[in-house]
């Protein structure tokens, strides 16, 4: 588990993990509706992380805990 920050970039969501300096685009997010948001997220570099599904944040950027499922760190 690590703290990540999700912000809005030019082409969709951007994933940022300060501890590992990973900044990459999110190519796929499992749930992306106002009521249910999060789930498995896929990064441009092939990494897969999991965010507990929750209501979409009112404003981005947004800090949240994420779990690494797969991929480089």
């Amino acid at each position, binding site marked *: 588990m690590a703290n990540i*920050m999700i912000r809005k970039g030019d082409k969709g969501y951007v994933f940022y993990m*300060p501890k590992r*300096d*990973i900044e990459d685009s999110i190519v796929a997010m499992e749930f992306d509706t106002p009521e249910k948001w999060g789930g498995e997220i896929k990064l441009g570099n092939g990494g897969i992380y999991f965010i507990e599904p929750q209501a979409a944040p009112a*404003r981005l*950027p*947004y800090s949240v805990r994420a779990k690494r499922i797969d991929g*480089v760190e």
Partner: protein
Amino acid sequence: MGLLNREEAEALIQEVLEVYPEKAKKDRAKHLMVNDKKLESAKKCITSNRKSVPGVMTQRGCAYAGAKGGVWGPFKDIIDISHGPIGCGQYSRGGRRNYYSGIAGVDSFCDLMFSSDFQEKDIVFGGDKKLAKLIDEVESLFPLSKAISVQSECPIGLIGDDIEAVSKKKAAEIGKTIVPVRCEGFRGVSQSLGHHISNDAIRDWVISNRDGKLDAGTPYDVAILGDYNIGGDAWASRILLEEMGLNVVAQWSGDGTIAEIENTPKAKLNLLHCYRSMNYIARHMEEKYGIPWLEYNFFGPTKIAESLREIASHFDDKIKEGAERVIAKYQPAMDAIIAKYKPRLQGKKVMLYVGGLRPRHTVGAYEDLGMEVVGAGYEFAHNDDYDRTIKELKDATLIYDDATGYELEEFVRQVKPDLVGSGIKEKYAFHKMGVPFRQMHSWDYSGPYHGYDGFAVFARDMDMTVNNPCWSMFKAPWQKPAEEPEAKAA
């Protein structure tokens, strides 16, 4: 020898790696690369922000250096207590020439060194009482200070002193902000973690002090983050922003004050010069206060014009016109400088090895002068810095992360640049090798280098160094015939 092509550069890296034992060689190989502009991300080609190999003479600093010298030191009205043995504070005092306006020892404290001077008994019995006493002394001797920060040195973390508790208690007593900074030197692999810790300390202890009490400000409020006012850099940047109609509410941290930190949340845009040391707080402010941030580059007229236009694009037409006006105003002066120095510097090769932003930021300024960067590297950069760097540099440029003394010397010996830009630790080694050298951490006692005014100084300094007649007198006359074997043996 001209510019290296890709094969030559790769062969050079292999040659340099030859001397290392197997394990160190494997490790160091990951930190050296030849630039390829096509790369999207540097991650596959270069490893950064890793522990240095013991025994290779790294040029890095420690977390305390990043926190005290880097981020906190330049704030002028904050007294930075170096909590621990005396040496760390003494040797980090005032060496970076962070200029400020104010009177030293009265309302400004950049030049002074405050230390709790740990002795054996403090290690044995703990230093919290000493810290409390020191804060009282500081308060009585320098009542015009606006805040205090406690920069912990290694022993504080080792003996487990509770500087947070002391800070809270004393802050309530004296009615000033006291920030405990847990920047023990052993944390992390370089000064970079010290920057991060300082950013987090500002986030936790300072930035929200005036939440809800700040006025809305003007629509043109901006803050300069990551400009340490070395030789007056931040001032040279600030006047350009003000001239185009923006209102600079804070300077982080060169010539900055605690009030400016507390006022930063009313900025409409955070301007980030040193990305490496201040991006953390910029990201935090984006999340908490919704302030967007923008990286800019004020080295050399080309990049300045680009940056001014990019900054202006976040504002209305008045600022956009202001940016064009500023660019048009300074362009003739810049053309004159380029006309004067470019013929003298055209085609000269530069190798850089600096800290967090200059290996990529100064590339534009050198190119304005017709010079070429043939090698660049960082002491403490992370992957995201290299992502940005590979776009700035030409193909087949040498890139070295956390270079060792040996690697730097060998690269310089083989590539034979006309100028090396690096820090004070490298300066005299290269002087002795007879290579023109500029100290690019604190501008070799010169500056400013940022902004249009800074470019004039930058161009003059580079010319003064590269074309200095002393380099041709480097060898004594009786040594000259034996030059070839000598150079090899040296």
